[in-house]
Structures are given as C-alpha cells and as structure tokens.
C-alpha cells in the first residue's frame, strides 16, 4: 500500500498532518491545512498503487521486449543476459 503521507502530499504538496498507524480517528491537520477526506486519501493511494503496478509491468515488458530484440540480432540468451542482466522466466 502506498504510504498515506505520500498520498496526502500528492493531493496537496503543502499539506501537513499527523496520524497514528492507520487509525483515522487520530488524523489531525496541522498548520492550517485544509482537511482532506479519508475517501480522497484512500482513492489517491489506490491510484498511486495502480500507477506503481503499471510502471512495474511496463518496465518488465520493456525488459522482455529488449531481450527479444537482442536475441533477434543473433545474440544467445547468455550473451543477452550478460549485457542486460535480464533472464526470461
């Protein structure tokens, strides 16, 4: 799960808060920060989590694609792995 503080900062980079664990009852907004709803924070966490997953998927896909292209150029898998560190599953 994306860090709650990161999600809050993503919504409002100037936001200042304090919370104990994940106990929403302890959430307080500091230094005149406009409150952000729990739903908005959780939605942002989910959005960032999806983006993080998509980014990881895209990165893995790019590695596999690059490896395929290297093999297409005539390199062996051992040679391609030596160059990129990538090993197909």
């Amino acid at each position, binding site marked *: *799960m994306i*860090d*709650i*503080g*990161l999600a*809050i*900062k*993503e919504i409002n980079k100037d*936001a*200042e*808060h*304090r*919370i*104990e*664990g*994940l*106990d929403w009852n302890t959430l307080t907004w*500091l*230094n005149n920060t406009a409150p952000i709803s729990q739903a908005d924070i959780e939605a942002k966490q989910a959005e960032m989590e999806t983006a993080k997953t998509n980014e990881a998927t895209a990165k893995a896909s790019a590695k596999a694609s690059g490896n395929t292209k290297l093999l297409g150029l005539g390199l062996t898998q051992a040679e391609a792995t030596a160059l990129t560190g990538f090993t197909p599953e």
Partner: protein
Amino acid sequence: MATINLGAIKFNWKGAYNNGTTYAVDDVVSSGGNSYVCIQASTGNAVGNATAYWNIMSTKGTNGTDGSNGTDLTSTLTTRGDIVYKGASALTRLAKGTAGYYLKQGANDPEWSAVSGGGVLQAVHNTNATPVNTSSSSYVATNNSVTITPTASNSKIYVVLSGQVAVNSSGDDPWIYVKVRKSINGASYSDVASNYYRRYAPSAGNIHILEDVNFHLIHAPATTQSVVYKVWYHGGGQSSWYGGRSNSEVSSTNGIAIELANGIA
C-alpha cells in the same frame, strides 16, 4: 519487782510537724518533704537536721518535675515523630524528619538527611508499537515516551528513548528532525534535549530511509510530580514515520527512566 523503761520500741509516726504538739523521744514527723525523729521531748521546738530535739531521719529526693532538676518531655516533644537528644546544655527536640530521610549523626548532634550516594531509587519502562506518520514541517509528538514520578525533588532522571524514524519521500533533500520534550504534571511540553538533525544527500525519486534514534540523557526535573519524557519529530515536510517505516512495518519504541539519588549523577 524492778521494772525497766525500754522507751518506744518502734518509731511513732505523728504526721506533719505541728508547733503546738508535745513530742516524745522517737516520735517521727514530716516537714518540707523530710522526716525527723525526736531525740528529746519538747513542745514548740522546730525540726532541724541536728538540733537538741530533732535529727534528720530522711531527706527528700530531687524534684524531677519542677523544671529545675529535670526536663518535662511533654512540652519538649510537640509533634508526632519528634525525638529528643542531649544537646549542648539540655535535652533538645529534633523535629520529625521528612518522609524517606534517614537519621544521620552530625559533628555533634543528630539530624535528618536525604538519602545520598544510595543509587537507583526506581526504574520504569514503556514500550509502544503504534507508529506516527506526519507530513508536518514542525515537531509533532511520537508515541515514544516514558513517564516517571520522582520520589525526591533533587533526584536526577536517567532517560533512555529509542526508536526508528523513516522518511518516505517523493521529493529531494530529505531531513529528519528529532528531539526530546518533557511535560510535568500534564503541563505543556518543553524541550529537554538538544535537537537531533540528520540530513541526507539530495536524491531524486522515492526515498526510503530508516534511521535509529537513541537518546540518553540525565535530567533534573526538580519535582515530585509526574514527568513525561517524549520524542518529538518531523521530516521537514516530507512524509515521515516514527516507530517503523510504515504502518505495516512497525518497530516498537522503548522508553526507560531511572531515578538516581541526589549525588549520583
């Protein structure tokens, strides 16, 4: 048949001397606390230690309650817990001592004295497993704390507070700010220990830093009321955690407070 006058074969107690009474040999009277025996019959001759008519038989003892030959302890000892000792010239009252004090012999007289050089008076410990997250740029309270109530106002408190602080930053140049603050008897917190700053090298992208925090300090709270020592912190406006790296990656904090008798530290 001849008769022999044996006189009195025992003393004749006559009570208090009376100037108008005729006394015979071996009559015994009292006067002024003394007792006298008649050695020659007469009337109107006052008693004395060694006169023609009287001899002292027994002398009164020292009067211990008139204030001249003794001390009335009921007026010297006035309060529960008082004790008495021989002073420079008279019996002297040592007023009840402070609770927890011991009786110490001074150069001449005894006195009450606080325990000194005695060592550890008490120790308390607190652990907590609820981390705190903040994005504040000013100090917020953590759950890393310990509470102690000193038994003497001149005690020193050895405080140990330890935990882990983390910055989960999407920005650059993260800092960590940590310090110890105290609250006496529920009053507002004020600083105890110097601030602890830690700056990390500028770095782009998400940063996950976990740092051990350990405070060891000696503090003199000068009170016998409850004292809370607590770690306060912030991450310079970045999302930061105290007591772990996130709400799911918790490392318990610990607080220890040891009361040391005056003179130990």
